[in-house]
């Protein structure tokens, strides 16, 4: 006789089988989704904006793709080998891949994309390529990257949005930025560019010659362009839109929309980016130049409140300067809890005299404005004389680029590895006016520089881990910036859109696997 547990298990197995049968992907149908804001162009590598990545990640591909655990899986490269000393990476390419114009995709395209195209145009790829000594095609379907030294995050750098493969036969020896094909991007991906009605819609259609048999399942994807957040919510509500990628509606609309019938929500698909919200604190002048003041700010802020009220409970309060998806996170640090008394003590200890300071909210919508108000109130409670200043995107860029601020909200992508997404905020040689994304706060610490630089090229991972632990301890003490939250960016979709988020970059390459259960 079967025990109740065994019965339960076999019942579960039956359900699973039934589900698996129902879950056989079916071809056909078009998905309507949103792109916000309208991208400036669709040629990845030339344009790196989030909306460009979101649309063009379905047109173009990289050598590798990444799971939601950020494990590399084959894309254009079928397999790869790393030499024992970590100096040489050999990629074996798929042999049956063609560009959307019918030309075959070969190792020459890889060499051209990496060595010529990205070196010239793409700052994110350049940061990786500075570790690469040579790129060679040893035959039509094999490419060898030789590094000047081991580089820990090398294998995570091949995501389509960062390291896109572009067609050599269309771009070689042309002025890349004025190339006539920019208006009609040609990739290897599951969807082909069909039409861009400026201000209205970008239409992609199925690539019938895609190298994976039977894929993609969808006939096409329409990216609607709707500039007003309220109108986007309405379009989803009335059924015109099937998928709302993260960040396309205001947070206060999310509980209402996700409570609708046949609406599902996922937080997956941002592991590669893991947007990390921070508070820049000017380390150069004013009270924020004092470490104790910055610690006081950390203790004064109620970050759980912000997450629960402003972000619908999605996201995580960070344990360290390293986010949970960026590898090597130190989980043994004493957290900066909400502790106004400790904050007041620190302020008294440093002799804070009530000097007025300002906060710049991020001009990206209502949630950020409200968050700045919440932080302002937190800081006032411990006696910091603070007020918020509103700007638009241009003003915000300039204020940060000119270091003309006390506290400022921002968020940064982590790109799966501290050497790609995190060290840039703290390295002293990354202090330069004119950019809001470098070491804007002006933090200089020789030991931190040494550790970050050593860790980027240390080999194997155990060595990197030790270096990164030490650097996190120093940063945790120094508080060069305030660590606010690892943001939870939910994607809302009709539940009959299946297998929508299958990778660590979410809908940016997700329509490859998606299908409609209608």
């Amino acid at each position, binding site marked *: 006789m079967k025990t109740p547990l065994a019965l339960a298990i076999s019942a579960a197995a039956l359900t699973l089988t039934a589900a698996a049968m129902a879950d056989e992907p079916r071809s056909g149908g078009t998905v309507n989704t949103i792109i916000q804001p309208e991208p400036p162009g669709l040629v990845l590598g030339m344009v790196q904006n989030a909306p460009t990545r979101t649309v063009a990640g379905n047109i173009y591909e990289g050598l590798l793709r990444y799971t939601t655990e950020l494990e590399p899986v084959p894309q254009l490269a079928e397999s790869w080998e790393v030499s024992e000393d970590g100096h040489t990476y050999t990629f074996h390419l798929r042999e049956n891949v063609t560009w959307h114009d019918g030309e075959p995709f070969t190792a020459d395209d890889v060499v051209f994309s990496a060595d010529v195209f990205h070196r010239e145009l793409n700052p994110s790829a350049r940061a990786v390529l500075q570790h690469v000594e040579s790129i060679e095609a040893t035959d039509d379907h094999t490419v060898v990257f030789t590094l000047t030294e081991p580089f820990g995050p090398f294998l995570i750098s091949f995501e389509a949005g960062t390291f896109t493969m572009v067609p050599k036969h269309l771009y070689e020896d042309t002025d890349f930025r004025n190339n006539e094909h920019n208006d009609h991007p040609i990739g290897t991906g599951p969807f082909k560019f069909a039409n861009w009605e400026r201000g*209205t819609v970008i239409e992609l259609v199925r690539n019938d010659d895609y190298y994976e048999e039977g894929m993609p399942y969808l006939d096409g994807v329409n990216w609607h362009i709707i500039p007003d957040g*309220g109108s986007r919510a309405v379009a989803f509500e009335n059924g015109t839109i099937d998928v709302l990628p993260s960040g396309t509606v205001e947070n206060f609309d999310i509980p209402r929309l996700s409570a609708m019938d046949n609406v599902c929500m996922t937080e997956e698909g941002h592991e590669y980016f893991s947007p990390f919200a921070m508070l820049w604190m000017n380390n150069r002048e004013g009270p924020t130049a004092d470490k104790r003041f910055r610690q006081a700010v950390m203790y004064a802020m109620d970050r759980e409140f912000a997450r629960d009220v402003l972000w619908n409970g999605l996201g995580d309060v960070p344990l360290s300067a390293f986010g949970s998806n960026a590898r090597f996170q130190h989980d043994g640090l004493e957290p900066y809890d909400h502790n106004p008394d400790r904050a007041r003590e620190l302020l008294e200890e440093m002799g804070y005299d009530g000097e007025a300071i300002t906060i710049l909210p991020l001009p990206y919508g209502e949630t950020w404005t409200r968050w700045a108000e919440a932080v302002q109130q937190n800081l006032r409670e411990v006696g910091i004389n603070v007020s918020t200043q509103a700007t638009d*995107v241009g003003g915000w860029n300039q204020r940060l680029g000119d270091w003309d601020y006390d506290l400022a909200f921002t968020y940064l992508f982590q790109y799966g590895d501290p050497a790609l997404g995190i060290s840039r905020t703290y390295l002293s040689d990354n202090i330069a006016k004119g*950019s809001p994304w470098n070491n804007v706060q002006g933090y200089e610490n020789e030991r931190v520089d040494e550790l970050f630089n050593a860790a980027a090229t240390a080999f194997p991972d155990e060595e990197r881990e030790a270096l990164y632990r030490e650097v996190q301890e120093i940063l945790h003490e120094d508080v060069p910036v305030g660590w606010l939250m690892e943001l939870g960016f939910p994607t809302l979709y009709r539940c009959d859109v299946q297998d929508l988020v299958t990778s660590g970059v979410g809908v940016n390459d997700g329509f490859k696997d998606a299908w409609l259960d209608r």
Partner: protein
Amino acid sequence: MLYARLIVMRLCKAVIVLFLIVIFNFFLIQMAPGDPAAILAGEAGATDQEFLDQLRERFGLDQPLYVQLWRYVSGIAMLDFGYSYRLGAPVFDLIMARLPATLLLTGTAFVLSLVLGIVAGSMAAARVKKPSGSLIMALALLFYATPLFWVALMSVVVFSVYLGWLPAYGLYTVGAGHTGFALVLDVARHLILPATTLALFFMAIYTRMTRTSMLDAAQQDYVKTARAKGLKPGIIQRRHILRNALLPIITLAGLQAGQMVGGAILTETVFAWPGIGRLMFEALQQRDYNLLLGIFFFSAALVIVFNIITDLVYRLADPRIKGGS
């Protein structure tokens, strides 16, 4: 002949005015914080100095201001409006691509508000002490006082979300593949909400103005004469009162017409209408100077053209206005 001389003179003045506007706009934009290269780089989320320098060089932002000004003005003289930094396309093409949608929206709203406003105003003037006249004026006051964005949002909530009668946004149904007459119908359905929203405010103004100036004209001696000679009230209303009351309405219509290119930012944004207003707003946020200056130029040119047309229409409506002055 008189008209021809008037037009030539006004066009000469217009060229000078436009030139001054171009210079003024150029410096106005320089005063805005933030530069386009930094914003483009900022949007990309990652940048290095090389990237910024490349962008500045491409846009000519590495040149001294007077060189930039000279390049821009000499370009305009050849009707070359330059390239949009962000969209990487000629400004002229971008504006032309968006112009039809905007003109369709603002033109419809213009005709709608003018016709309905004058009709409602005349009715209110004829029913000056009756409840129906008061009702018209109360509605006009309501539309006059209600913010446009609120009307827009509420009309979406009522007619698209609750009743489901009309589409909530866009110029046409994406993916429906309509052609020919079906497409015209589809666009017309999409046009109803934004055009009505945009028309309401001006309609209210026309209504109030028509009524006031008609009541004013009704007090004049020639109206008494007309009544005394036994003309029918309807004819007096149309020929003697309305025609004389039209001048202030023409002035206002000229103003509204001048705003047709750039005056629908809010409506276009809420209804995702792919027009110039949205293009301008996005260009402003992106500090896309060339594009913004191009749109300013077109808007200014249109205002000037409609001023000239208004002057001509004055003369048609009231033959007492004469000459080229």
